[in-house]
């Protein structure tokens, strides 16, 4: 019997478009019959072309799914053109735009990719994931210019294999930004994208794909839980955030 997976890609923008290209190929050839779920409430605009890979203007999840479906017939590609919000809809000021709660979206055994552009949405996704027994969440992002980082959160049989990122990153506890899914269209249009670079977006996607290859395809331990990189310096640095390692370290 073929092993199938359910990949949930939240965010089909600067990182997500490149990551989608890798994930769908992985599913198509390693896990035929699997599902790639693409979630995004935002639309592609001509100005996004500088860093994002798409062929039509429209909702990001829908456009990306329509592009990939004819190319990859052994993978079910499902668009969800909605914003991800908290289970209690906390902070939501706009009732009109389509929304899905993180708990409705993520289920047991999912492999989730949170490549959004704010910590508020990441927190919502991690909060929902941490309530499940078996889950993998890969997240990644970049700042301006050439710096970026990724993080892999893993639970097996109800036990955390790697630490929740909130233990090392206060920004996951008290996000300094807003989840676009909670904002009105006007407020969303006023969010600055910063000066991101294509190379950094693609590097984040590549580092995540590398971790998937090691920890999912080859089922090896997620020792390199968090990785920082700086393309300008040509350096990367892995951090071991496995629960056992961190606890052993503290008692030394």
């Amino acid at each position, binding site marked *: 019997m073929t092993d199938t997976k359910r990949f949930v890609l939240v*965010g089909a*923008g*600067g*990182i*997500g478009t490149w990551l989608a290209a890798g994930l769908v190929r992985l599913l198509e050839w390693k896990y035929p019959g699997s599902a790639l779920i693409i979630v995004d409430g935002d639309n592609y605009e001509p100005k996004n072309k500088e860093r994002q890979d798409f062929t039509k203007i429209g909702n990001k999840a829908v456009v990306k799914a329509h592009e990939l479906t004819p190319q990859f017939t052994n993978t079910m590609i499902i668009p969800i053109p909605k914003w991800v919000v908290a289970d209690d809809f906390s902070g939501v000021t706009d009732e009109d735009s389509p929304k899905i709660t993180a708990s409705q979206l993520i289920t047991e055994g999912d492999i989730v990719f949170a*490549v*959004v*552009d*704010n*910590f508020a949405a990441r927190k919502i996704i991690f909060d929902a994931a941490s309530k499940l027994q078996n889950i993998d969440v890969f997240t*990644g*992002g*970049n*700042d*301006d210019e050439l*710096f*970026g*980082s990724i*993080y892999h959160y893993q639970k097996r049989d109800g036990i955390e294999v790697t*630490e929740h*990122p909130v*233990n*090392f*990153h*206060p*920004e996951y506890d008290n996000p300094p*930004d807003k989840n676009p899914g909670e904002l009105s269209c006007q407020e969303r249009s006023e969010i600055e*994208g*910063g000066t*991101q670079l294509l190379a950094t*977006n693609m590097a*984040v996607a590549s580092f995540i794909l590398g971790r998937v290859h090691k920890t999912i395809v080859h089922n090896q331990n997620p020792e390199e839980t968090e990785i*920082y*990189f*700086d393309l300008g*310096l040509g*350096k*990367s*640095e892995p*951090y071991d955030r496995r629960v056992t390692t*961190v*606890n052993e*370290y*503290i008692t*030394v």
Partner: protein
Amino acid sequence: MESNMNNAASQPATGMANVRFGVYNQPSNIGGKSVKDAREQFSKLWGIPNDAVAYKGKDKLDENYVIQPGDNVEFHRRAGEKG
């Protein structure tokens, strides 16, 4: 688990400890120095921002914490936000 570690009153012991920030990772003779001293020493080299929080494992370190030989002190920068 989260705690603010402050051992300023304990006996300082000198020796090597490890300092990390982003892509940087360097053993250094900072045992016996405070977190504040280490921050000042490495901030110019590595660009550690003032709001970067010092950690030992999962424990947040007070600026007056005296680094012990063998400690692994990480200055955590905010993770990449945009995507």
